[in-house]
């Protein structure tokens, strides 16, 4: 029942929702949306929250501009703690020199507290990395980047503290004996930034259930449990999902075994020996390379009027629904969905301007993954 006082107030609204809906602002709003999307998201990249819906637009027309910002999510790293919180010292030293070089260079930080474990790692390089930990009802992402990025990240957090509801800075924070800046936003998410060696580090902490409150004291306690670990401990704790350098070639060959490859496709070139990748990321790298080759052929054939070649590429892309690695990846992330969206659009065909839309956007969305 509407409260009578609320009803009085409602009727006194200068503008009603119905009146706002009736305004003819479509063109101006589309211009505003495009202008905002053209702005770079200079804020720190953090874990994407799991959308309850995939969040694709309801409009039927292909909006490839939506799937921009391609495989930037691929430079992450890993260490694993055992479920009881101890550091799992690795019995095997099968790591290639590249892995040792990385481990020797990067900040090797673990959470030394009961119940914490690594939930996700992706790819590891000397330049940047990220480890997603979980435990105690919290999620914590540790990210490192070259220290030159520190000011940009700090500025972004300071700006958030001004703009976002209930955002604030937590004063007097230290991490591993180093002064740090800590910020709370949305009431329950925290960013802690500090510098160490040639790196800037950020720990992003939030409750596993985003809507739960999270008091600063728990975050400060988590910071106290961070510890530096040795190269052996760190590498030995790598999760099984990280593909060992020695296994990359074989793994890639297995991944492509049920894919129809374009003529002259170089499978061996897919085995990147310079970085460590999690199986999901390697799958995106491989499936993306094959799909992108086919899409490129489809675009060129469509533009030159070579219907046979276009149909051949289209059929190959239709078969992507049978690529087992994509189905394996499906429960973990959206890469397969994005790839299939392009494939289905090509197979469905028919919309005016579609070739140009695909040509403009597929590389950014799918390739070089």
């Amino acid at each position, binding site marked *: 029942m509407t*409260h*009578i*006082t*609320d*009803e*009085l*107030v*409602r*009727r*006194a609204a200068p*503008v*009603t929702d*119905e*009146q706002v*809906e*009736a*305004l*003819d*602002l479509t*063109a101006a709003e589309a211009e*505003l*949306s495009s202008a*905002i999307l053209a702005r770079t*998201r200079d804020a720190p*990249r*953090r*874990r*994407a*929250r*799991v*959308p*309850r819906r995939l*969040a*694709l*637009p309801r409009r039927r027309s292909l*909006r490839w*501009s*939506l*799937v921009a*910002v*391609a495989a930037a*999510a691929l430079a992450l790293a890993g260490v694993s703690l055992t479920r009881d919180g101890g550091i799992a010292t690795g019995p095997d030293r099968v790591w290639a020199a590249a892995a040792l070089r990385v481990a020797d260079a990067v900040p090797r930080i673990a959470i030394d507290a009961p119940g914490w474990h690594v*939930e*996700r790692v*992706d790819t590891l390089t000397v330049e940047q990395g*990220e480890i*997603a930990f*979980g435990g105690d009802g919290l999620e914590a992402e540790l990210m490192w980047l070259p220290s030159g990025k520190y000011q940009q990240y700090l500025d972004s957090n300071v700006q958030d503290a001004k*703009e*976002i*509801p209930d955002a604030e800075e937590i004063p007097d924070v230290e991490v591993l004996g180093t002064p740090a800046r800590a910020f709370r936003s*949305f009431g329950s998410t925290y960013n802690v930034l500090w510098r160490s060696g040639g790196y800037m580090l950020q720990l992003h902490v939030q409750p596993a259930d*985003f*809507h739960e409150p999270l008091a600063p004291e728990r975050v400060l306690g988590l910071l106290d449990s961070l510890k530096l670990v040795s190269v052996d401990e760190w590498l030995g704790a790598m999760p099984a999902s990280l593909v060992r350098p020695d296994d990359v070639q074989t793994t890639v060959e297995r991944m492509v075994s049920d894919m129809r490859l374009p003529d002259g496709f170089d499978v061996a070139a897919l085995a990147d020996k310079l970085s460590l990748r999690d199986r999901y990321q390697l799958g995106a790298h491989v499936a993306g390379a094959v799909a992108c080759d086919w899409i490129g052929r489809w675009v060129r054939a469509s533009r030159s009027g070579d219907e046979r070649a276009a149909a051949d590429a289209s059929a190959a892309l239709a078969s992507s629904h049978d690529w087992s690695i994509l189905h394996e990846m499906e*429960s*973990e*992330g*959206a*890469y397969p969905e994005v790839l299939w969206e392009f494939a289905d659009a090509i197979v469905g065909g028919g919309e005016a301007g579609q070739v140009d839309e695909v040509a403009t956007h597929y590389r950014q*969305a799918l390739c070089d993954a």
Partner: protein
Amino acid sequence: MTRRPDERLAHPRFERLFDEHRRAVLGYALRRVADPADAADVVAETFLVAWRRVDTMPDGDAERPWLLGVARRVLANQRRGSVRRHALSQRLARELAVQLPAEETSAARDVVHEALSRLSEQDREVILLSAWEGLTPAQIGGVVGLRGATVRSRLLRARRRLRAHLAALDPGEDPPEIAPQPPTQHPPFMDLAKEHAA
């Protein structure tokens, strides 16, 4: 298991957010500013923040309260004069200026507005979020940073105080007479816009 970070979701999520909530944010702003151009600024700034934070902002039912919470903060900055006119919103501001050239008020509305103006900012905001934005106490909590139970008690108190102000302003009526609501398909300002066009 958590899903992978996926930058590819940023664009589609933002577009959906914009599609679903742009008019709610615009309405929120229009009801709180005198100059529609200021509302255009609020919309632009709010969705710019949303774009920057699209991968971390809450989802589902919490989306709109979060966006309105940002809009509320932007409005507060605007009132302090710390926000300059946003280049992003120029066209939207121009369109709004054409379509909302004037505001029509009635005597009863003036009484209610006067009573509202006598409330504290916090009391006024929870009432307006309930009556104008149609939010639940839990959602209002998401906008103003309070727990739902706290909002409920604050709403009760704010309504009580508002009724007292209304009674003091218009002692002859209890409750004060409210002018019939204009048909939504012909709101007063739209008629004015038509006259301008003619």
